[in-house]
């Protein structure tokens, strides 16, 4: 890796000051994406600002009908949280299926959301559950937060503090893993709150996470497996690579959505 300055701020304020005063800083949460990128010399930040020492960034609580998860909360903590398991079991399941044991003990929700990997699970979790991203500047709905591949609405001096998930009536996350990387080849987060149905897809969009409105409309009318007649997304907007063609991914969206309805109905 290239050389960088390492900072270990003790407060959010100190971190914000560093963010503003350094040349090309990078926030370090669990480091599960950033550290490999550094080791491969694919990233060259001037300064690394480690968030681990900041009080209050981590933790899970219930607040006004939502589950609020601090940005530095690890995937393992989310997957093992009794509160999450009780209120949004689909989210606990999603967190428990990220990467492997080691990754889940280091990687954080804030890091994953900020990175916006097009095959990561949390972007689908956020959009599919209609989450709100809380930063040091503002609150943003997940629909507007994820912009494009590895791109979010976060400003340069902005940092995620927490993600707030409204508690749905029913939800499920089904992932079809890429056999090589085990990232999502297609991942579907589906939720139903009253008459509102959200279906968010990760792994398949050529610009990252997206909502499949065709499936949402169908399920709003009839929340059943048989209501789904496949994805409504144009194949041109679905990614294709050596692991799967757009056609196969599109098919899997429909199939995983059906399984998600089945799982959500069972819960």
């Amino acid at each position, binding site marked *: 890796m290239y*050389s960088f300055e390492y900072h270990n701020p003790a407060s959010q304020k100190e971190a914000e000051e560093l963010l503003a005063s350094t040349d090309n800083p990078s926030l370090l949460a669990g480091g599960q994406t950033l550290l490999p990128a550094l080791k491969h*010399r694919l990233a060259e930040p001037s300064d690394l600002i480690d968030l681990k020492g900041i009080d209050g960034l981590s933790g899970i609580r219930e607040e006004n009908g939502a589950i609020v998860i601090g940005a530095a909360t690890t995937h393992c903590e989310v997957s093992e949280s009794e509160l999450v398991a009780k209120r949004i079991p689909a989210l606990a399941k999603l967190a428990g299926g990220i990467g492997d044991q080691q990754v889940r003990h280091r990687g954080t929700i804030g890091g994953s959301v900020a990175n916006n990997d097009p095959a990561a699970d949390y972007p689908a979790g956020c959009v599919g559950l209609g989450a709100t991203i809380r930063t040091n500047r503002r609150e943003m709905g997940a629909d507007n937060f994820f912009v494009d591949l590895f791109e979010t609405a976060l400003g340069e001096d902005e940092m995620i503090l927490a993600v707030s998930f409204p508690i749905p009536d029913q939800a499920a996350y089904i992932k079809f893993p890429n*056999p*090589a*990387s085990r990232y999502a080849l297609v991942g579907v987060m589906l939720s139903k709150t009253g008459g509102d149905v959200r279906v968010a897809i990760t792994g398949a969009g050529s610009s990252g996470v997206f909502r499949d409105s065709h499936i949402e409309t169908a399920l709003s009318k009839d929340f059943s497996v048989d209501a789904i007649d496949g994805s409504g997304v144009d194949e041109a907007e679905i990614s294709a690579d*050596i692991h*799967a063609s757009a056609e196969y991914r599109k098919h899997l969206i429909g*199939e995983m959505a059906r399984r998600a309805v089945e799982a959500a109905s069972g819960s």
Partner: protein
Amino acid sequence: MNDMLVGKPLKRKEDQRLLTGKGRYVDDIRRPGETYAVFVRSPIAHGIIKSIDKEAALAAPGVLGVFTGKDIQRDEWGSIPCGWVVTDRQGEPHKAVPHYALTPDRARYVGDHLAVVVAETYEQARDGAELVEIEFEELEPVVTLAMAMEGEQIHDLAPQNLCYDWELGSRAEIDAIFETAHHVTSLDLVNNRLVPNAMEPRAAIAEYDSGLDSYTLWSTSQNPHMLRWMLSGSVTGIPETKIRVIAPDVGGGFGMKIYCYPEETTCLWLSKVIDRPVRWTGDRSESFLADTHARDHLTTVDLAMDKDGTFLGMKIDTTANMGAYLSNYATSIPTYFYATLFAGCYKTPVIYSNVRAVFTNTSPVDAYRGAGRPEAAYLIERVVDVAAREMGMDPIDIRRRNFIKPEDFPYQTPVILTYDIGDYDASLDEALRMIDYDGFPARREEAKARGKLRGIGLACYIEACGVAPSQLIGKMGAGAGLWESGQIRFNATGTAFVLTGTHGHGQGHETTFGQIVADMFGIPIEDVELIHGDTSQVPMGMGTYGSRSLAVGGSAIVRAGEKVIEKGRKIAAHMLEASVIDIEFEQGLFSVTGTNKSVTIKEVAERAYVPLDYPEGLEPGLDETAFYDPGNFTYPAGTHICEVEIDPRTGVLEIVDWVAVDDFGTVINPMIVEGQIHGGLAQGIGQAIMENGVYDPESGQLITGSFMDYCMPRADDLPSFRVGYTCTPCTHNPLGAKGAGEAGCIAAPPTLINAIVNALDIRHIDMPATGEKLWRIARDKIAAQ
């Protein structure tokens, strides 16, 4: 008296060390004053080097030197050799294109070695490497096998990028058979490119001692003596007495670490130029780019039969990828380790094969676990299955009808090899019993009720191991003999060092050889210490590959042990005041026939080193060396059967059962052998459904350059394997052992593909049979119904 250890599943002696982080690998070894080498690798697949600008790199902090191929050439270091001459159809040797440690003229694949930067630290060397500026005149890369012969010429010596056009058998004879055959089954096959991916990447440290004018090279080698030989005899001209190669603990090789590579060769050169130790440890990305790759064939096979399904003749046409340069044994793999296996388990009377080996702008291809034999077994067991389908025969029946039967041995195949022994029906019977073959239709119906397509498939494979009789392989073009050395050196207190020219890098040699020697001398296995992997300690050796370590290396150790016993009898006779012919040896005890007078091996060893009262004229010491050259290859064979279930809605495949029945002859440690089967199966299953080395056909960039894209099998992709054995001991080595290291990856691909085509009721599917391919077939079938 000890309990006999041979045949027992002893826990591995080496595991305490290896599993607790106490293994000592090349990268664990630190040398005073060491420096770091980082290679500047080609970012393009094909181009002429116009200029290399070292200046910025030389000015970078900590950089001690920047060197190119021209610098090494000034010292008149030669090409890394290919040690096996394949003679083509016109009687000409293969095109021996040069392969310099650093390419002086042209980049021939992405990852090719263009320059090296040496610095005080690794990061400084990497920084320096990024500053080396190289200008190319880019050339059209030759990427795919299908286009290789029409593409831009890669080597001056090789028009049409053809390394050789080789044949085995008579084309006229095979044509005559095909003209009159009742039926011909023809099949086009891809044998997909694999990247070996040993757990430990390659690494090297070279140290030059100016006082002694000698070199020490620590290398992740399966084959340290051969590496020294090549470096000395072919590349550098430095006497072998001045090069010591040490291969310490090595974390997996699979054939990929047999060879002399550019990186270690360059480090050796640098160690004198820099006059400090030079280390290089490859990272995973470099492993993907510049380790030898494997397989990569395009093949058409035709099988001619009479009306009963009796095989009359087989014809094979293969294009094999050599990659950009010839690795040490690359030429032999798609010829003498491939076409000589085309008889399989069957009495096919006439076989003709034609293999064209071509150069492409990809990483060099060479032996990888199985090495030619998986490719052979795959095409045989696939075409036999398709033949059964086309002839309306049961796949079991067509195999049995054509099997070489126990009474046929020794069996001279039409493709050079003579099988010594085997019983193919026995393995097939046992496998059918274990899998409950007759119960399959019911299991298929049950799966159908769950919406799954269940299939069953089998393969009856044979391989040739224990490479190899030197005279035979000499006739095939080998540049070296493939004997092995073994030495047993008793100490004065009755413990023994065993020295072998084989090298363990996961196989459990310390345990297996320990069991053999402990039994031979009736001493505890703890008193046997194996020494391997150091050219200055072990007399000579030919390394570990081709499942040869036990059959050849173990036999050499047995021969050395026999010499120890022979000398021990003389010492014992003296001690017991008897004549030598009356001395028997059993279980560590020398005794006088018909009496209870005896001395132990421990007492004899002590006397050998304290010869105060000793046979006249006998040398002191108890230390014997033997060289063993096998009389034939060994021929492990067996039947594997697996069952799969495919989810037609997603293409997801689950292997629900796997039965492996192998005949390895004598098994020394069944736990180690079972581990070898499991590991081999994982690799073979990986090839069949997951692994695929893919280059972009236009740019020649390696697309599958990391585990994100190259699909390695994981434990949860695999079923719990069920292992059984039959045994026909090898007739020509003292252990009766055949070798077990490669069977799994040879048997697995055809077994699994046969099960998949059975589940889908199709004629063929190419490897890797990925989920998307399976889904498309299932979808189209459902649509057609």
